[in-house]
């Protein structure tokens, strides 16, 4: 076991291997406030990667309705139950995690605390879809934020963690994290189907193929990423909730990097269940209408701050134009952004080579047309 630094916990922790950060680390920010649960990302992934025999149940990308939905069934509550309550020391800045990670909590004989799902656990990709957190009565709950009755959509892919539990658990070292971009892959030649990774991954993003009898997982569409193109689930996002790029540790954060800006500069994007200790590299902007307690459980002690920043931007559109600029660049291009700038009233995105690839106005121009157009003899339904 080695001691490694986990910036999301603000402390060192034990891990199977020594700290070895990749040269770059792929990442994405999911703005939950914008997700409409359409599952277009799910199908984009499904039709690309998991339409083979033996992969029927697999959704490397899935969207579940919170608080009840989960895929596989109860993935979050089961690992939270094993991990126990998260203990954050909020006196320090940033807050320090004082509890035990799933590596530090490994039971005797295991490398990681975990649980192995059964086939039936995967049989309901989104049970509880669109259900609210509580029964709806006659009250007008929607008038206040956070709302008393709420739900939200949680889109999930592999976190391509800095300290992947799957990598730690695989006794054969058949899983590896690519040095060039931090993508975590399973060597399909080397895997012997032990399913230690399926048991270990707390996010349950490793899946067992019924036909090839080895395990498979999200590959972050690495063939596209190698060409500077976003993964399928990202570029097909109807709600434009996702922004793809590369994240740095806080001490190397670049405020012109869109991911770093959201994660480190504004701290509006947060890791999911950071207390598990994997330093996941997919980040979420918490939904502002949801109860603070639930958000703190999911995203850690900074959830309140993130909600406040986002609300401020919404309520005072002119207050944080740079944050608006970044968020407007979400899925505005299929290129992976390396940098962004706010130039005048336009958000400008640059690819990893510094070439401008997209330009989006902060305020879309509005055109109003007449209902009747005598020139071509039509009556319009939509005039703006």
């Amino acid at each position, binding site marked *: 076991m080695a001691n490694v630094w986990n910036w999301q916990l603000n402390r060192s922790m034990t891990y199977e291997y020594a700290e070895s950060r990749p040269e770059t680390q792929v990442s994405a920010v999911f703005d939950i406030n914008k997700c409409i649960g359409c599952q277009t990302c799910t199908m984009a992934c499904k039709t690309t990667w998991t339409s083979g025999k033996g992969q029927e149940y697999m959704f490397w990308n899935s969207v579940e309705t919170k608080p009840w939905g989960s895929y596989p069934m109860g993935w979050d509550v089961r690992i939270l139950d094993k991990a126990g309550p998260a203990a954050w020391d909020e006196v320090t800045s940033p807050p320090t995690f004082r509890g035990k990670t799933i590596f530090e909590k490994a039971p005797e004989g295991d490398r990681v605390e975990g649980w192995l799902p059964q086939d039936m656990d995967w049989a309901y990709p989104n049970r509880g879809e669109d259900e609210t957190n509580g029964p709806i009565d006659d009250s007008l709950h929607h008038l206040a934020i956070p709302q008393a009755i709420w739900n939200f959509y949680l889109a999930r892919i592999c976190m391509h963690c800095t300290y992947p539990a799957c990598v730690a658990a695989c006794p054969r070292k058949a899983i590896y994290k690519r040095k060039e971009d931090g993508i975590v892959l399973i060597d*399909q030649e080397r*895997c012997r189907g032990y399913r230690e990774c399926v048991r270990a991954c707390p996010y349950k993003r490793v899946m067992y193929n019924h036909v090839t009898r080895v395990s498979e997982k999200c590959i972050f569409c690495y063939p596209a990423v190698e060409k500077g193109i976003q993964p399928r689930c990202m570029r097909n996002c109807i709600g434009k909730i996702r922004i793809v790029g590369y994240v740095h540790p806080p001490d190397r954060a670049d405020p012109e990097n869109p991911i770093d800006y959201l994660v480190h500069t504004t701290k509006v994007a947060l890791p999911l269940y950071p207390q598990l200790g994997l330093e996941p590299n997919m980040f979420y902007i918490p939904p502002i209408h949801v109860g603070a307690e639930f958000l703190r459980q999911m995203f850690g002690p900074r959830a309140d701050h993130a909600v406040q920043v986002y609300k401020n931007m919404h309520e005072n559109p002119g207050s944080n134009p740079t944050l608006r600029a970044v968020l407007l660049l979400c899925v505005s291009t299929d290129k992976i952004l390396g940098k962004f700038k706010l130039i005048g009233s336009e958000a400008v995105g640059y690819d990893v080579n510094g070439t401008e690839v997209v330009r989006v106005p902060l305020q879309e121009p509005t055109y109003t047309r007449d209902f009747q157009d005598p020139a071509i003899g039509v009556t319009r339904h939509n005039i703006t």
Partner: protein
Amino acid sequence: MPIRARSVLAAVFVLALALTGLQVLGLAPPVASAGTQLLSAGVQGALPATDPASSLWDDATPMTLPLSAQMAVLPMRTTPSTPSVEVRSLNNGTHIAFRITWADATKDNRTTLLQQFRDTVAIQVGDSAALPYLCMGGAGVRMNILQWKADWQADLEEGFHDLQDAFPNFWVDYYPYAIGGPPYEVPDAFPENASQYLVGYTVGNPFSQPLKVTAVEDAVAYGYFTITTQEHQDAIGRGVWSDGVWSVVISRRLDTGDPQDTPISRNNVLAFAVWDGSAGDRGSRKSTTTWVPLLVIAPRSTEIDLVPLIILLVFAIPILAVLLRARKGEPEPPKPQPPEGKRP
């Protein structure tokens, strides 16, 4: 009557001569075993290479080996899932077979479902001249592992256990590029482009091959977790589960000629490992024996190998001659003298 030293020497010599002669003829083991060695009994003709029920196994000396939980590396078992195995071995001078028997209440010969793990038994073949560490050898030390897998055998004997076998109500309309119709049997319905969606199969992972060639994986390892299927497969075997007992035969040539295999001759040591699928055993979660010396007894042969006999005689004749000459040169005991007065 006092026993003279020379008589004892002669008796020992004659006994040794007889024993050596019997060994040369294949009628006696080279050394006596006190239950610390696994004896591979020599038999003439074909071995029961895939038949654990053969009566030939009655000729082999059973050896019961206790199993310990693998607790050297993580992940591990904390208690053994199987307490012991009984091992017998036969050889016919060119091939060797092992029959391993152990109690297992459940027959776990499927790995199609996520929660299914296979029953497995493995023999690790080492060389006592360079005794490696028990688990998969070590860096630079090659270990030859013969691993029988219950699901591989089931695929061989019953056909590939496909998705529709595990999920009888399963239905699918379409797989990309697959030919034919539902349920699109593996592998026939997945040629060329369609096979790209069965990644483990396409890249040649032995565990992903629907058409198995043997139930025994002939593998090589150079330390923990390095087990790798060999390019050339040299072992066969078959197991039978009945009334809560697995009986599995694993067999191969004594010397396969494959440089990745450890030849089996006079100085081998073996270790055995058992995985109980229903106990969640897989990989390093297993129960193992310690190293066991293997003693291969040559089968009785109708043709006598003259070379050892000649060597024996070359040494024995001069020794016998010396003994006889010594006996001739010995002074005769004094003859009894007649009593006085009776002299003729």
